[in-house]
Every structure is written in structure tokens, then in C-alpha cells.
């Protein structure tokens, strides 16, 4: 009955990566497979002289640098546009910024934006691939892919894997993307945190999602533990007492013992030592936090190669 809505002029261009939710499982597997073949140190110039714009409306260290290194490893030319020091500061709209970047020759846009759905808006109006590098509290698909990539380096498959995600779920785009990806491949996910961070409605995100307020319950038998930072910049007036949070939810060496012996500890970063986890856990043998960052590069190489039609 409904046509493409009026505000969406076209379907997203092939190769766009807007979110995990609506991605086909084969596409996800394909990307992970491709990522395994990518080596930033022995790169092939698959994207020689292709123009990729990194459009960042929000602060980023990891995502930005790894997309940039990924693009350059493939021989692409990158331009970074940030909200400060560009026409965005003067009030240019998102779409006009997109049209401008397209006009200067961008062949793909990697966008990070504080507003959920911003990449979808852009993809609905541009004929070039748009890659979501994190949109508000919505999704962070490249992070979910690199997390999946990392997990598969340590675990044979996602099937029946017990994954505990602990912390500020409500504000976390990483969690939303990870839930979509991991549940698709059969992982059993438990979300853990206080009601302000883990509202009951969170269980509706994907089928079979479990919620607990007790970290012990979340950790028991876990194969993968994902920790999250408290996003102070998105708290918007919510009062949470840090000391209470630390007492109930901080990941410590003692608590880690409740999980399986070969459990891995993950964190999308940035980590705040002494808050959501202790330094011992962050630097401990089960931590794969640095490994995740490292895996961001080949994963994003795969994403960019696919975006520009060089996913062979």
C-alpha cells in the first residue's frame, strides 16, 4: 500500500552499510570472510585513487583512525570533514553537506553523527554508498562486525555462545548492533545493568534477549563478556551514583572468575579504568580489548572494499 516515503528519494546505494538489523546473514558472513583476507600490512591497492570522505559530526579516535587507515591501506584518497571548521558550523544541513561532498567527487561517505538515523537520511538522497560509523544511540555496525571478527578468533562459532553485555545498554549503539548480529547467528545474550541503563523494553530488541540486574547471574557460564562505558555525554539529566554502579557492576578479577575459564573480555572503548572495569581486568590475560581495536582495520577494509564494489 505504501510507496517509498516522500522523504526518501531513493534506496540506499549498493554497498551502503546502515545497520546490522536489516542486513542479510549471508552479507554479514561474507563481510567477515572478506575481513579475514584483508591484511593492512600487505595490502593490495584495490581502491587506488578512489575518494572516500570521512564525515564526523562527533568525536572519535578508534573508528575514525581505523577507517582512515583501512581506506589508505587499500590505496584510497581520504578527506576528513568535521563539524567544527566546516560549513556545518555555519548551519549547513546534513543533506546539503552530503550533496556538496558528492559534488566534490566523494565516491563513498563514512558518517558518524550524534543523531540516530542520520546515515539513513543521507543514503536516501545520495547515489553513493553511505557507511554508518555510529549514529546516535542507534547502531554502530562496523563495531559489531569487528567484534564478531574478534570473537571468531577465539571461539569456534556464535551458536549457543553465552554473551553477557554489561553497563549502559540504553545509550549504546554498539549493543544494539551486537545484539542484532550475535542473536542472528544463535548466540544467547544477557543484558545486565540497573533499570536506568537496561530498561525492560530492551528485551524486545531481538528474540530471546534476557535481562538481569545481577552481574553474578550475567557472568555465570559466560563465554564472552562485553563491557560498556557510561556515556556521560548522553545521560541528559539522569542521575546515577557512580559509587553504586561500581559496587554493583564493575568488572573485577574476582567477578571474572564466575565466567567460563576461557571467557574473553571485550569493550568497544574508550575504557574508563576504575569505573566499568578495573585495570587488572583491562590488562589481564582474558582481555581482548586491544585486539578489537586492531581488528577494526581489516574489518573496515572489507567494508570499504564492499562499498566500492571491490569485494572480490
Amino acid at each position: 500500500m505504501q510507496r517509498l516515503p516522500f522523504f526518501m528519494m531513493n534506496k540506499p546505494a549498493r554497498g551502503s552499510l546502515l545497520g546490522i538489523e536489516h542486513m542479510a546473514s549471508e552479507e554479514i558472513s561474507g563481510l567477515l570472510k572478506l575481513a579475514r583476507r584483508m591484511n593492512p600490512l600487505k595490502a593490495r591497492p584495490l581502491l587506488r585513487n578512489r575518494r572516500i570522505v570521512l564525515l564526523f559530526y562527533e568525536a572519535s579516535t578508534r573508528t575514525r583512525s581505523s577507517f582512515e587507515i583501512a581506506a589508505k591501506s587499500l590505496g584510497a584518497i581520504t578527506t576528513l570533514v568535521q563539524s567544527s571548521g566546516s560549513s556545518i558550523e555555519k548551519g549547513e544541513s546534513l543533506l546539503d553537506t552530503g550533496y556538496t561532498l558528492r559534488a566534490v567527487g566523494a565516491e563513498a561517505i563514512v558518517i558518524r553523527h550524534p543523531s540516530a538515523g542520520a546515515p539513513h537520511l543521507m543514503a536516501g538522497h545520495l547515489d553513493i554508498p553511505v557507511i554508518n560509523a555510529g549514529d546516535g544511540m542507534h547502531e554502530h555496525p562496523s563495531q559489531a562486525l569487528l567484534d564478531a571478527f574478534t570473537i571468531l578468533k577465539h571461539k569456534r562459532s556464535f551458536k549457543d555462545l553465552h554473551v553477557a553485555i554489561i553497563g549502559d545498554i540504553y545509550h549504546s549503539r554498539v549493543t544494539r548492533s551486537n545484539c542484532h548480529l550475535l542473536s542472528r547467528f544463535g548466540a544467547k545474550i544477557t543484558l545486565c545493568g540497573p533499570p536506568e541503563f537496561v530498561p525492560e523494553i530492551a528485551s524486545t530488541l531481538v528474540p530471546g534477549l534476557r535481562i538481569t540486574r545481577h552481574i553474578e547471574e550475567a557472568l555465570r557460564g559466560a563465554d564472552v563478556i562485553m563491557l560498556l562505558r557510561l556515556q556521560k555525554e548522553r545521560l541528559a539529566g539522569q542521575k546515577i551514583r557512580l559509587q553504586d554502579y561500581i559496587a554493583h557492576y564493575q568488572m573485577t578479577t574476582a567477578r571474572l572468575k564466575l565466567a567460563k575459564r576461557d571467557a574473553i573480555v571485550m569493550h568497544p572503548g574508550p575504557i574508563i579504568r576504575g569505573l566499568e572495569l578495573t585495570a587488572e581486568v583491562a590488562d589481564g590475560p582474558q582481555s581482548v580489548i586491544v585486539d578489537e581495536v586492531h581488528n577494526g582495520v581489516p574489518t573496515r577494509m572489507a567494508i570499504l572494499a564492499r562499498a566500492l564494489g571491490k569485494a572480490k
Partner: protein
Amino acid sequence: MPTAKNTSRAPSLLIKSGHVIDPAAKINAAVDILLRDGRVAEIAPPNKIRAGADEKFDARGLIVAPGFIDLHVHLREPGQSYKETIASGTAAAAAGGFTSVCTMPNTAPVVDTEEWVAWLRRPERGALINVFPIAAATRGSRGASLTDFAALQRAGAVAVTDDGKPILDDEIMRAALRLGAELNLPVVQHAEDTRLTENCSMHEGATSFRLGLRGMPAAAEANIVDRDITLAQQIRESRLHVAHLSTSDALKAVRRGKRAKARVTCEVTPHHFTLLDENVGEYDTYCKMNPPLRSASDREAILVALADGTVDAIATDHAPHAAHEKQVEFERAAFGITGLETALALAITKLHREQKIPLMRIVELFTAGPARVFDLRGRGSLQRGNFADVTIFDPKKKWTFEAAKSRSLSRNTPFDGWQFTGKVAATIVGGKIAYRAD
């Protein structure tokens, strides 16, 4: 008394062979109607009207109803004529079967003085149908001090409101209801506890969580309606009208007020009885409005209340916006959609055909109901002597709505391309044909 539009001498018009549905007059039968000098001159069984007429309208196979009244439209003048003008908005209203619209005061500037009320009613505005201004309840709609209700009423305002914003302060709301009671002037509340909806852009639920958007809890509406009804019960003769009611809990509060014989009325929009929060889909800003599209259980409760008489009127909350105000990030997009041209079609398609609500009740929600809410004397019924405002429609005609052909200056509708049953055939205002379908 407010008469929004001068009815210059029109040729007399005989509406023949139609089926009249007039809930206030309890007519549901084949009846002919003669309109003369801007009034209903005669109403009689088929072929019984002897007096001659300058013109005839053959209404065979059509429903002839009192002119539809929309209690809630934003025509954007003064100040925002790039979105809509009174001329374009009333043209869209006429195409949607409306003969009278009540305009909201949240313009630029806010309609908070008698001068602006009078300005809205001047012939230069080019209104094609009757325009009844609703004035601001507080100065600049800032919620701090009341406007001069008596002067606004004398100038032609039919109600007061700060629509777009709630009147939050208990004392101000109490004072507004008290002054309204003295003047027999309804106070229209946009019920939203904005302390609970800061930075929110849709209904709080599974969809808002999935999309990562901050959600407005249903309680933000119900809390205010609840408080207002408690106040209305305390203040004798006060008249409270709840605008665009959208939640099941707010309906419960309205029922409580009505049972207690408080003078409380409410309206519901076509989009709230049609769509759900999940229709936001992947950030469709044409499904962004305030109050937001709600849950399935809220819609269910609204459908029950439309059928059982709890709801007094269907009002569109027609809220035109330019493309560039909607083609932005969802959280930044303007709230609201156009609605004048799709209201009747949605009511017939969704309420009559799907929910089996009788046409008599649907016509009541567009006519006698709203006329009662704002005391629009001589309107909402086709009794002899009343204003010659008539809406003629074909309840069985199938058609497809095309936003591009809308008479509104704006195109922000989620119903583009929808197939409907039920279409307006003609809209007659003061005895003159303001719209006729081709």
C-alpha cells in the same frame, strides 16, 4: 457572536436526491435541502420542495451531511506563509469536506491579541471556508500570564490554548479555567508534561528503543489530562477541551471527568486512529508528530472511545511544514503532518469499513460533536435556519491520495499513495460551492 465569513448573496441551491445524515437532527434518510441566502431554507422529503432554486445539485448516491468542522488546524499565518496560508489551507480544507476550521495561535507572532484575532478573520486573508480563530491562553504562549480572554472572545476567538506547548503551571491552568468559566470559553490543552519529554521525538516503546530515539512516555500525556480534569471538576462551569488525545490512560481520565459531569471534551486525530509508533519504520519524519504515534493498545482504546461516544470530535491537527523542515535528521525534524484532505477518507476507510462504526457516528464526530465543543451556533446540523454549510460525499468511492496534488502548500503526509474508500464530492459554505470534485 463570531461569524467568521461574510456570506454575500449566493444563488439559491437545491440539493436533490441525496441521503442526508444529520446526527443532531436525527435524520438518516433521503431528503432534499434548499439553501437560500446563506441559510438552510427548507428540508423536506424527496421532491416535496416547491420553491424554485437558481441551481440544483444532484446528490444521487451521495451522503449529504452538515458541513464538517475541524477544531484543530495550523494555517501558519501570520508569519509562516512558506508553510501554509489561510487561502491555501482553507482550499485544502474545502477539498477535505470541511466548511469550518479552528486555527491554532502558535504562529509568528503568537495570536494573543484581539488585533491578531481580527486580522485572521479579514476578507483579505482569502479564506475559502469559515475560519474560527483560537487565541493564545497566555501571553506569547509563554505560560506565565493570561491573555485578555474577554477581549479575544469579543474579537472572535472561540477558545483559548497554548497549543504546541502545555499550560504546565497548576495556578495558571486553574486561573485559565476560572476565567474561561466566567466567559463560557473553552480552554484547550495540549497535554504533555514536557518535563518528561525533553529531547524526545517519538513514543516510548519497542520502536523508540530499537531506533535509539528518546521516547515520550504515555504518562506525559495522561498526567496532564488527569490534573486538568481534577481542576475542571473543582471549578464550576469551567470548560476543558483535550486536544489530540492519544493514549489509553488519558482516555480513562476523560471518562472519569465525563462521569463526574465535568464539562470536559476531547478530540482525536485520524493519524492516531490509523497509525502506530512502529510506522516510524526507518526514521520516517512524516510519521513524526506531537503527540507521537502510540502503541497498538493505545490505538485500540481510541477506536473503542470513538465508537462509544467518549470522543467528541475528529480533528486533523493539520500541521504543514516545508520539505526542508522534514528532510533532516529525525530528532531535528519538525513535528506534525498535513491532514485536511485525508481525514474523511481515513475515517471511512479505517473506522467505518474496518471497525464497522456507523456513518451516523462518523458524521457526528465531524459535525455535531465539534460544533458542541466550541459552541458554534447554527453549525453542525442542517436544521432550517442554520448556516448553509454542507458536506457531500461518496462513502463508496475508491481513490488514491496523491500528496503532489494537495491544495496545501506543504506535502508532509504519511498517506501519499494510500488507497482510500470514501471521497468528498462537494463542499458548500454559506450556500456557495467551495469545492467540487471533478
